[in-house]
């Protein structure tokens, strides 16, 4: 099964020795892999930069550019750093193996290479690459190009940094009863429409959706890239989301389908942003008091009877560009002191005249 999955995968084989090259190519072709060959590191890099490969099989001892130098070049190349590399060499000494692994090689096989071992290692490397590609595709689909780029550059490094930004939580009101009132297919379709509309509003204002769960989402403004007016951008995105939901509801009503209502909570300030999770499964997110507050404000929209609630820091960040209604201090779970809460006014979304 696994063998079939990797059939047709494209490999580049680099070896200056003709006998080694022919034999390895033969072994790989017998496994159903598509093999191209290069006689030294320099030629190999040129080929890697002009054609797509799934795996590199690399010799170390080579004239012009040896395997160590190839590994160093690959690590520096954003496009090629994720290409799996299996080193095949008859170079002796554990230090050479260690050096290859440290330079980013996936595996090291002693020559003469045992074909069965080679097959197993190639299968494992291609499987890892497939998972990585899948992860990248997910990132591409669920994040902005900026986040995708940041993730590439940091190499999905876990760990965080402090950022200044705004967090938004948005949720469909009464979703559970809504889901019970219609067939499951329609519920999923409704969710997909809602996510499409929300993603669009968020990303058009410079935010990223960092998490989605059921009928809710969390969006970040100001991370991973700084956003000068993150407070304004977040509130404008929220107002646009409401407008979109209203348009959507007109359509729903016309089709005799249920309408939806949403609640949005926004808070701003210091956060720790980064990739959390394990090396196998990680997500870009923010944590901290600001995030908790945004989540609580979203929950509080039901109590306050408003669709959007923001905190004092966000309101100050608006600098009067959007009118807000002060709802007074509110006791929020997890906060010792009552928090000043504000509701942006919908009818004054236009920039104030000079």
């Amino acid at each position, binding site marked *: 099964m696994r063998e079939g999955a990797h059939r047709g995968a494209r490999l580049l084989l680099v070896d*200056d*020795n*003709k*006998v*080694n090259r*022919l*034999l390895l190519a*033969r*072994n790989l072709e*017998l496994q159903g892999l598509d093999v191209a060959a290069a006689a030294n590191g320099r030629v190999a890099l040129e080929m890697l930069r002009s054609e797509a490969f799934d795996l590199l099989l690399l010799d170390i*001892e080579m*004239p012009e550019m040896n395997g160590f130098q190839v590994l160093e070049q690959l690590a520096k190349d954003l496009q090629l750093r994720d290409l799996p590399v299996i080193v095949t060499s*008859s*170079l*002796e000494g554990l230090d050479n193996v260690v050096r290859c692994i440290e330079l980013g090689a996936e595996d090291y096989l002693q*020559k*003469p290479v045992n*074909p069965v071992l080679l097959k197993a290692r190639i299968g494992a490397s291609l499987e890892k690459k497939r998972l990585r590609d899948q992860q990248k595709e997910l990132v591409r689909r669920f994040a902005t190009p900026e986040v995708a780029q940041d993730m590439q550059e940091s190499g999905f490094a876990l760990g965080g940094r402090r950022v200044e930004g705004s967090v938004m939580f948005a949720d469909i009101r009464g979703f559970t009863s809504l889901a019970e009132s219609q067939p499951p297919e329609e519920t999923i379709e409704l969710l997909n429409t809602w996510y499409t509309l929300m993603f669009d509003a968020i990303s058009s204002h410079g935010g990223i959706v960092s998490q989605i769960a059921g009928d809710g989402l969390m969006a970040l403004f100001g991370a991973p890239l700084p956003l000068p007016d993150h407070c304004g951008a977040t509130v404008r995105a929220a107002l646009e989301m409401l407008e979109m939901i209203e348009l959507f509801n007109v359509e729903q009503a016309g089709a005799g389908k249920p309408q939806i209502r949403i609640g949005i909570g926004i808070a701003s300030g210091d956060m720790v942003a980064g990739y959390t999770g394990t090396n196998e499964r990680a997500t870009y997110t923010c944590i901290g008091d600001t995030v908790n507050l945004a989540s609580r404000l979203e929950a509080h929209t039901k109590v306050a009877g408003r669709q959007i609630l923001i905190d004092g820091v966000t309101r100050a960040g608006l600098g009067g560009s959007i009118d807000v209604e002060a709802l007074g201090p509110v006791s929020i779970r997890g906060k010792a002191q009552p928090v000043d809460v504000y509701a942006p006014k919908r009818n004054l979304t236009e920039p104030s005249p000079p």
Partner: protein
Amino acid sequence: MINRTIDVATFEELKATAGAEFVRELVDTFLVEAPAMLAELRDAFAAGDAERFRRSAHSLKSNGNTFGALTLGAMARELELGGLGPVQQARGAPLAALAREYQLVAQALTELARA
């Protein structure tokens, strides 16, 4: 005779995994390439070029082991790891011995490949 030069088990395994016809071609390639590697080794020795010397010996070791020419492989390995010094002390004798062993290997491989 062949058994001392070529480890037949290794050679047969190579044939079984890569195919007899392919191994015949591979032997032909080796018989073309190896004299050039031996010449390179001699040149590097004469020029006192340690890096080239090590690399040529390394290639011969690698190919020798592939075909089961374990003695040739071991001799080349000694040159690869030992460097120029010991060969200079022995006034090039190990190179001559390596060339003689290669002649035996070439003959044995030719026979085995056609068998």
